[in-house]
């Protein structure tokens, strides 16, 4: 295997491990404080980390300029992603939350790609991809029914 591919694969794996730990930590925080306070703490921690990095990199000028407000809304949506994850993790566990979320994500991005929504490069759904979506839908169904 190519050395860089091995390194980047290891990084991707680590990122996945970190996501599972993060989702668990956030769920625990929501349980030991409250769903609402946890949202503030989580965003504050992220903002502080991102701010420190900007200061270290000397990128503190013109942070908000030159971008349409709509494209800033990803962060606002992130609040609801975290709220939903916290609710789900504490009720159906980490495995099911992350499994089902991935299916929702892939199907939504497939639809956006098919129609070319939100500035996504338009690429029509090809016949060859349908079994992939069916497998994922089946996986989600098995999780929901027998999970």
């Amino acid at each position, binding site marked *: 295997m190519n050395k860089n591919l091995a390194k980047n694969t290891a990084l991707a*794996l680590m990122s996945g491990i970190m996501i599972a730990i993060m989702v668990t930590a956030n769920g625990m925080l929501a349980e030991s404080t409250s769903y609402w306070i946890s949202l503030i703490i989580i965003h504050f921690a992220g903002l502080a980390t991102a701010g420190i990095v900007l200061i270290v990199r000397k990128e503190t000028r013109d942070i908000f300029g030159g971008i349409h407000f709509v494209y800033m809304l990803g962060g606002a949506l992130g609040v609801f992603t975290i709220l939903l994850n916290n609710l*789900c993790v504490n009720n*159906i566990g980490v495995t099911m*939350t*992350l499994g089902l979320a991935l299916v929702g994500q892939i199907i939504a991005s497939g639809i956006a790609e098919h129609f070319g*929504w939100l500035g996504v490069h338009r690429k029509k759904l090809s016949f060859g991809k349908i079994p992939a979506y069916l497998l994922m839908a089946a996986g989600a169904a*098995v*999780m929901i029914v027998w999970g």
Partner: protein
Amino acid sequence: MLYSFLALLSGVNVAVSIMLNARLGAVKGLYKGAFINYFLGLCVALPLALIVTGFRLGSVKISLSELFILTGGSIGYLVVLINNNITPKIGILYVTVILFIGQIATGALMDILAGEPVSIGKITGALLILAGLIYLVKAEKE
């Protein structure tokens, strides 16, 4: 059933965020983009929390042994940096497959540690989702 639906919805939300953030990152760069993300997030989270709780947030008591539960936001930031670094090099779908393997394996471990059952249904479902994802990578290449 309700929570399963909410988990799917969370994924849809992630997909929309990724599309918006791609544009944001392209204009402002990765580091400013991530900062704007958390800033907007806090701008929504703070009033939302105050309104929902009727301006009574209560106090926060976290013992020293569970301080790590405060780090979720920082871990999320690091994940964004890593993913942005590797995605152009090995492709979004390949990243998603490997990420998913890491997530689900660790997630199952976390569930077991927390005493949450990891049933045959969950494992079978996760494997089917993984199979679909790998199929999608192959179909995308053709």
